[in-house]
């Protein structure tokens, strides 16, 4: 058998190369959801704080659009390659076992292909809900606090957010550590610490994100009592 010419090898077309791209794009998105969660914690600091934060982001147009393009590319590559690999993986076992008894695989690791699309659908809805406003019943551009509180007052909307965050939790539970394995960045001395740190970050992301809709539903975060009468009296005054 003659050797495969190295010049014929396209590493990014190989399963291992595609996995590396999945890992890198996953890491980009992981970093994003963490920063996104930290920023959103300002919801608890009141309307001025979070609205000012929103304004800050909106005013930094070049940075905002760079981030948006990078994230969009990351999501696109992640979806495309995971589908390609999923199809190849399925094709590799044309005849199924009558019964397979899993020994090590976690539920999260075997359902990445389900948690992924749910998160993908959620992202589209989330952008239409809070960024564009089309899916929002009373969207006020620039008033982030108002949009969040009004949006989450619908228990079905809040329920979907919670469900999506649970899926994100499952996805990160497997994905965060898995990406370090794929990049080869692990070893016996760092494994334990890596797992602890990643699990802590992932849990923090999910718990904080779930707390936002729950806080609104529980009435902990609500619209300022003054704003409604103020506008009402303003209207009455006219």
């Amino acid at each position: 058998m003659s050797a495969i010419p190295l010049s014929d090898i396209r590493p990014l077309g190989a399963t291992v190369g595609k996995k590396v791209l999945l890992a890198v794009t996953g890491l980009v998105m992981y970093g994003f959801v963490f920063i996104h969660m930290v920023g959103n914690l300002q919801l608890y600091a009141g309307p001025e704080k979070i609205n000012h934060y929103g304004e800050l982001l909106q005013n930094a147009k070049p940075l905002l659009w760079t981030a948006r393009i990078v994230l969009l590319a990351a999501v696109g590559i992640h979806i495309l390659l995971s589908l390609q690999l999923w199809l190849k993986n399925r094709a590799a076992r044309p005849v199924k076992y009558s019964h397979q008894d899993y020994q090590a695989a976690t539920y999260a690791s075997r359902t990445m292909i389900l948690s992924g699309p749910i998160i993908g659908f959620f992202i589209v809805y989330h952008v239409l809900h809070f960024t564009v406003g089309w899916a929002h019943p009373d969207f006020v551009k620039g008033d982030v606090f108002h949009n969040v509180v009004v949006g989450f007052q619908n228990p079905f909307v809040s329920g979907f957010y919670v469900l999506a965050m649970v899926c994100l939790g499952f996805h990160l539970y497997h994905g965060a550590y898995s990406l370090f394995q794929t990049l080869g960045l692990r070893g016996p001395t760092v494994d334990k610490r890596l797992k602890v740190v990643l699990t802590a970050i992932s849990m923090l992301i999910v718990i904080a994100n779930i707390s936002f809709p729950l806080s609104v539903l529980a009435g902990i975060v609500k619209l300022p009592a003054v704003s409604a009468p103020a506008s009402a009296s303003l209207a009455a005054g006219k």
Partner: protein
Amino acid sequence: MSGNDLHLTLKVWRQAGPNVPGKLVTYDAPGISPHMSFLEMLDVVNERLQEKGEEPIAFDHDCREGICGMCGLVINGVAHGPRRATTTCQLHMRYYKDGDTIVIEPWRAGPFPVIKDLVVDRAPFDRIIAAGGFISVSTGNAPDGNAIPVPKSSAELSMDAAACIGCAACVAACPNASAMLFVSAKVSHLGLLPQGQPERKARVLRMIAQMDAEGFGGCTNIGECEAACPKEIKLENIARLNRDYLAAAVTRRPETGSGGAG
């Protein structure tokens, strides 16, 4: 002794040839001694089948001492059966109870077509090895022993990886029928030693190219392979393979012509 004998029900995959449909066939297996190995149990069942003039169940086996990598059955949904770090031939019937039903299937993977019943064609593994799982050495006098220093830790990790017997239980257990654990064991066992350095980058690129061409799936880091491996090859080897692959892909140069004696 016969008081301890097991009366089992076997559901065995029977398939006459590569391109014909197969099915699970139920066999009654009374009088199985708990001292038998799993393969000896199949020998007994086959003897009885032959006495009745029926076709015996075809299955792969050779050394029957857990080191050749020939045997391999998916037993009740687990490659090599329920015992950790145990090949099918080293699994004994004492782990089963009287009245048990045992489902026996071949390794299932697109690149491993069934030859007959429980025997599959594992030639793709040979082609992956041929693509890069070797080192090139000069012929002539044997080199001095210990002329090349090898750190003890590297030698041990290399030997751990070299314990792979190529049985393909990793492929059988992986939901993606991926051969990554096998390839990673070969890449590690050669790549960790000084003798494996000259071809290290080309090896990992070529072996993965061959693995993909054979139609194996990709790795999703779920660990079924590690759990099924009778030689306890670790997932850490796959991390090493990924690391080597990434390094080789990023640092490779255009080829400057083939090497040779000149």
